[in-house]
């Protein structure tokens, strides 16, 4: 069976990207295979691990559970887009480096995107809130302690950078 292809346009990290995809192409695979953006990782492919989390119109979702055709006309932010305008590390990325919040790094893109969106909603989380915020992401290496620290550090960094901008 030759599969029908769909023309789609998805705004990825601020840039309109066109593609031609079969209906069953997952959004994560569109980014990785069609666009070469391999920052988004696929772990479980059934919504449990959180590695593939990205922001769809600013809202965290699992890109292993969305078809690329469904994202046609929408905007996506991946871990590659969680940096500063000049390409320097964004506050969450910087915090993960500062706090040693990753080891193998497989889970990290999902954490970075989830936390980036979370800090927009809650700029000054408590430690308990930070734990709750990352409850849907699995990490097999770190034991989470340093990831929790990274959430709090990222909140501080984000505030510092925002007040420096004013």
């Amino acid at each position, binding site marked *: *069976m030759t*599969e*029908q292809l*769909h023309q789609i346009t998805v705004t990825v990290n601020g840039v309109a990207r066109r593609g031609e995809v*079969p*209906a*069953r192409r*997952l959004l994560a*695979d569109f980014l990785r295979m069609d666009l070469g953006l391999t920052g988004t990782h696929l772990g479980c*492919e*059934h*919504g449990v691990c*959180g590695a593939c*989390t990205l922001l*769809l119109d600013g*809202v*965290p*979702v*699992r890109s*292993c*559970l*969305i*078809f690329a*055709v*469904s994202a*046609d006309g929408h905007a996506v932010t991946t871990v590659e887009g969680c940096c500063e305008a000049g390409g320097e590390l964004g506050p969450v990325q910087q915090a993960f480096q500062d706090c040693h919040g990753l080891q193998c790094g497989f889970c990290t893109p999902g954490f970075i995107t*989830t936390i980036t969106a979370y800090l927009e909603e809650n700029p000054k989380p408590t430690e308990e809130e930070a734990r709750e*915020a990352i*409850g*849907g992401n699995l990490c097999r290496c770190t034991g989470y302690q340093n990831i929790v620290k990274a959430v709090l550090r990222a909140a501080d960094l984000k505030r510092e950078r925002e007040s420096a901008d004013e």
Partner: protein
Amino acid sequence: MKPPPVVYHGPDTVDEAVRLLAEHGGHAKVLAGGQSLVPMLNMRLTAPARLIDVNRLDELAYVRTDLEGVRVGALARHADVERATHAFEAVPLLRQAVQTVAHPTIRNRGTTVGSLVHADPCAEMPAVLLLLDGEVLLRSDRAGERVVKAADFFVGPMESACEEDELAIEAYFPKPRGRTGTDWRELSRRNGDYAMCGVGTSVRVDDTGAVTCAKAAYIGMGPVPSVVDVTGADFSGADFCAAAEHAADQLDPEDDIHASAEYRRHLARVLTARSLKAAYEAVAP
């Protein structure tokens, strides 16, 4: 794994979606939030010939509250239901329960109506619909619009009354009458997982604080969610244990890899007592 080949339709209106379902009925599946369907496609547990993606039906992306209760359109995400303050004020049980559905990221995409149609025996929102005596509005070319009461909607595990050519349009959650308190609680192995046992309760009291109606709804305790009326139970003890005992005796859970039947029944007793107490205290004079 990756999903099998499939033909995709992305209708822009409800009429078009219903027409596509009439045309392709048994070979097509509605794709809503995809938080249950796509895992099944990825694991190749299902392989419909066609998908009818309803994510462009903005006309169904609503949570409306009036004097009667809350109407949730088929494209309202769990997160929309959770956030809607007006819905929480009219029917607090909606937020109480939806907060325990998966993780926030899943709730951002999964729809409440989709979870009703999916009818997982461990899902929260079917039990909420049942406890509140709610309804689901369905539409097809064949039968037009029909309203199915919650008591008739959950037919079996993963099986609802929504036929293959029907689109679920909205769910209606009536506002509890009189002085009624509600509560939801559950136990799962990890926060955000499907529950081993979940309990929702509603308790109505009169002005003296006497219980005039009390019900408990359960998930994870059988093939479909169930409701037990405990109005006649002994409410004299302050800990509600007698009523909880009475309710748990009427459940018939099964063993599975997540928990034994005996453990589930134990959870039902403990959670029901706590839940009835919380629901009662929310409205007691």
